[in-house]
């Protein structure tokens, strides 16, 4: 019942048209080996939920360059000029969410909620087609939860069961994404024996993790 597989085995599970969450804030905390394996595969028409889309030719930027991405949901794509170009050429759809709304929507997806009201973006372009509601005298915007077919996340260490801990600011979106997809694949720097990570310290309990790959592995 080992969860350990290779990157190649991992990306074989992904079909064209899948909706995939990918962890990371820029390239920090991004599962780069899994992304590289995806870039080697034939899958296309992907819908990616990720804060950014990498950099030109790096991380998710490779998938954009290879036209494997149909739609992206995230908070900040401007840092990759190739994303801007693909959008202008109508090769890529983009849905923009404030970073806090996005991270909360992923959490809500994993937590089985039907949606929530956030005060963020009220009165802005982002909220134009969203339900607005006044609660206790304050205006809020309704946000639906986000879920996906797959989450590709990056952690520092996994134990053999799949309990995860992260590395400094590389934690970012990974713990929420671990909760919000049908299949969760974690890329880790290191796998340790069960019991090597303290129960108090575990950030992502193993029930959220379906498969583990080791960074740099094939």
């Amino acid at each position: 019942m080992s969860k350990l597989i290779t990157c190649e085995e991992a990306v074989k599970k992904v079909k064209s048209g899948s909706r995939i969450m990918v962890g990371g804030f820029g390239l920090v905390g991004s599962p780069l080996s899994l992304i590289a394996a995806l870039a080697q595969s034939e899958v296309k028409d992907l819908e990616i939920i990720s804060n950014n889309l990498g950099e030109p030719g790096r991380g998710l930027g490779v998938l954009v360059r290879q036209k494997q991405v149909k739609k992206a949901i995230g908070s900040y794509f401007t840092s990759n000029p190739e994303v801007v170009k693909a959008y202008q050429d109508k090769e890529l759809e983009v849905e923009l969410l404030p970073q806090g709304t996005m991270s909360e929507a992923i959490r809500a997806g994993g937590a089985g909620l039907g949606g929530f009201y956030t005060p963020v973006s009220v009165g802005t372009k982002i909220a134009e087609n969203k339900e607005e509601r006044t609660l206790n005298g304050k205006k809020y915007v309704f946000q639906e939860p986000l879920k996906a077919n797959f989450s590709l996340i990056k952690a520092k260490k996994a134990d053999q069961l799949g309990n995860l801990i992260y590395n400094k600011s590389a934690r970012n979106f990974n713990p929420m994404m671990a909760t919000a997809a049908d299949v969760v694949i974690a890329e880790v720097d290191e796998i340790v024996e069960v019991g090597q990570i303290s129960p108090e310290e575990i950030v992502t309990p193993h029930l959220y993790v379906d498969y583990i790959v080791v960074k740099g592995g094939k």
Partner: protein
Amino acid sequence: MNVKQYIAARAAKELKDGDIVNLGIGIPTLVADYIPSDVKVFLHSENGILGVGPTPDPEHIDQNLVNAGKLPVTVLEGSSYFDSASSFAMIRGGHVSVSILGVLQIDAIGRIANWAVPGKSVLGVGGAMDLLEGSKKIIVTTMHTSNQGESKIVNELTYPITSERIVDLIITDLAVFAVKEDGLHLIELSPGVSLEEVQLKTDAPFLIAKSFNKGKEVTA
């Protein structure tokens, strides 16, 4: 000290001991260098850090430790790491004392635009709206005019608004304005700057505080 450093140093004077402070990209990032030594603040970075420290030497860069501008940072003793949902829960929940933000425009009642440019594809928003909505106090740091010489303090925003939230203080290279219910109040001129210059370069109307600081000295 160049003008951007001057603005940053002036903003740093607004910080109080114990404040939880989030610094935006650009001039706000410089504020960290000018915090008075007797004031201990804690820098929050929305990608999941409380207790950001100085920029590391090139040989001590840790790839897994960056700020919201994706630049390498360090952390101080007593710092903590958390996920993005927790980080923005802090921000939205009102647990950040002060955010210092850059802007594209400020309107006559103190609302800002700082995330999108008209006519261009809008492909990035980041955490700007969250910080503006949730922080207890908002300080804007900006050059008074754009590179094209246009006033950034305008009657009505022509850039997309970031939030209906009204900011608290505006610090430019020329002046400082407090934002109150009746609009912008000029409370301070930078050294060597005349009231006439500020009036000339400010499109929005503003009130002049009864006793404002003329050319207050700001040092690091």
